[in-house]
């Protein structure tokens, strides 16, 4: 196969098998993974050609709806640590254009690609123009959630989430890990999340893992938060699709889980990558696996992912258009 276009070549295609079931599917972060079209995963923070535009759009959503950010008062230390982790990570992954200089507690952050320069003193709230997690979440393409570890459980302590897939950070704030995952159907899934929480609680300081989640959606808007359900809910139900190849998108979420070494909180990053079916079909193996998965989903999973109608539609299109 000739070299795939960049969005396809770096796409984290989420389905390794012809069938799918809910699983913890975690693996070590930062490890490059080959796909049929290229590879992904060497970096934890995505920065494609449209990086600046994505960061700006994210900020615009937050400015229009400040409720996309939540932070408990007790999450202050973890929020500062999340800020430091994210800036340090981005500077390491994009040397030359992104830089974090440190002199004791004093920091100077410069990101030429998104045009940001900011000095701050770690731990000094007055040295930043906004909450440390708001600032951190405005420097990256990923949604950012801080889960605090207490009483042998994880709790949603803080987050800046503008690209939620049918949930709402404002609604979920303060929930336990089990409560957050209650909508996932089935006893098996329940066990998966119990195991996953235990796994996260036991991570050693600084360890980072990742997992992929996926779904289908009718357009290319990453913001499917329940906060704005009124603006997209009706269209989703009507399933008013003219050209599935262009309109229906595979939504892959690259989720990173980092045990912040100082506070022990878990930093949860969600990066959204959308790829229209016509570009999925550029890679025959992907088209075939996605079609096969959609054709064999259990009713529970299909219902949870809202694929009862969209799934068969997409599978039929893929079967018709994928080169075999």
């Amino acid at each position, binding site marked *: 196969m000739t070299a795939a276009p960049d969005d396809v070549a770096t796409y984290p295609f989420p389905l390794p098998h012809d069938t799918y079931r809910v699983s913890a599917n975690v693996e070590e972060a930062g490890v490059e993974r080959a796909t049929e079209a290229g590879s992904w995963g060497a970096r934890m923070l995505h920065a494609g050609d449209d990086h600046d535009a994505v960061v700006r759009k994210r900020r615009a959503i937050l400015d229009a709806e400040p409720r996309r950010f939540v932070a408990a008062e*007790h*999450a*202050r*230390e*973890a929020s500062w640590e999340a800020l*430091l982790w994210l800036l340090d990570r981005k500077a390491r992954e994009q040397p030359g254009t992104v830089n974090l200089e440190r002199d*004791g*507690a004093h920091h100077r952050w410069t990101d030429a690609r998104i045009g940001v320069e900011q000095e701050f003193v*770690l*731990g000094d709230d007055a040295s930043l123009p906004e909450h440390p997690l708001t600032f951190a979440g405005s420097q990256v393409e990923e949604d950012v959630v801080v889960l*605090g*570890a*207490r*009483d*042998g459980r994880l709790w949603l*302590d803080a987050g800046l989430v503008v690209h939620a897939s049918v949930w709402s950070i404002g609604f979920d704030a303060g929930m336990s890990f089990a409560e957050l995952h209650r909508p996932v159907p089935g006893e098996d899934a329940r066990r998966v999340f119990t195991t996953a929480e*235990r796994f996260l609680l*036991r991570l*050693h*300081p*600084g360890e980072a893992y990742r997992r992929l989640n996926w779904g289908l959606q009718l357009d290319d808007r990453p913001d499917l938060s329940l906060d704005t359900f009124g603006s997209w809910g009706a269209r989703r139900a009507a399933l008013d699709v003219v050209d599935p190849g262009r309109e229906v998108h595979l939504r892959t979420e690259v989720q990173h889980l980092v045990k912040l*070494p*100082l*506070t*022990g*909180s878990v930093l949860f990053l969600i990066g959204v990558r959308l790829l229209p079916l016509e570009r999925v079909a550029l890679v025959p193996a992907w088209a075939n696996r996605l079609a096969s998965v959609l054709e064999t989903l259990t009713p529970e999973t299909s219902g949870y992912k809202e694929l009862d109608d969209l799934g068969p539609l997409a599978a039929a299109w893929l079967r018709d258009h994928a080169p075999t």
Partner: protein
Amino acid sequence: MLELRVAAVATPCPGVRSLTLTGDGPLPSYPPGANIGLEWAPGRMNTYSLTPSPDRRDLVPGLDPEVYRVSVALRPDGAGGSRALHALAPGDRLRATTPRSSFPPVQTAAHHVLVAGGIGVTPVLAHVAWHAFWGNSFEVLLVARPAVAPHAEDLCRLAGDRLATAPDRTAMRALLERALRTAPWNSHAYTCGPPGLIAEVAVRAREAHWVDARVHAEPFVAAAPPGEPFTAVLRRTGRQVAVGAGESLLDALERVGVPAPRLCRRGVCGECVTTVAAGRVEHRDTVLDDDEREDQMALCVSRAAGESVELDL
């Protein structure tokens, strides 16, 4: 594993040796109350609490440290770890685990009551440095006889007038009474010291209407209490290993050359957790939950509840 070098040694008080350890460049960050395992003989690890430098109060404690500092109390009748570490000199090399969190502060606490006795001062020192940096509400109660209390000066510099010292357990009881009965709602208490001190804090806290979930402790006495002898059956080979009354299952396996992953040797880290194929278990760890205890055990502290236990080894 980390490859460390001894940069400096000091004797903060009789019977205690402080080691300053460096690596190649900044070392992994660590939370307050974290420990590292130091390999004092091939395959033999002891864990020690990391204490931040009291000199750099402008830096976040534990972040990208240039050095690790530990303090080792000499146990003349121990297995040999503290003696080996006391014999180290600047320039010596040793291997260490990356930091493990075992005794972290609770982020939601309105106020932190820190209680230390003996060498138990080391994780408390790390907590105090953390709270001092972030401006958190805390107080420290220290059982210390003059001239034999390690790090009392460091603690005094960091905690200032939030440190109260008792020369003995009776005086400590009075300090505890006052602290536990005047602390604001949703305070948390943390004790590191000998078992007697930990038990004392637990009893006084309960009397003062504290729920157990707000009372935390890190024992530094490593040896598990002895139990009845039993036989471990290794399912994969059919081999039988006799475990004596005075040794742990993990020690017995090591004695006969059966490798098992392990680290803390006191039932907190979970490294040595192994699947149990048959037999009832007396669980003494603090890492497994009830579900996990159905078919797993921590080899370092837990024992057979009957004459034998069969392991998936």
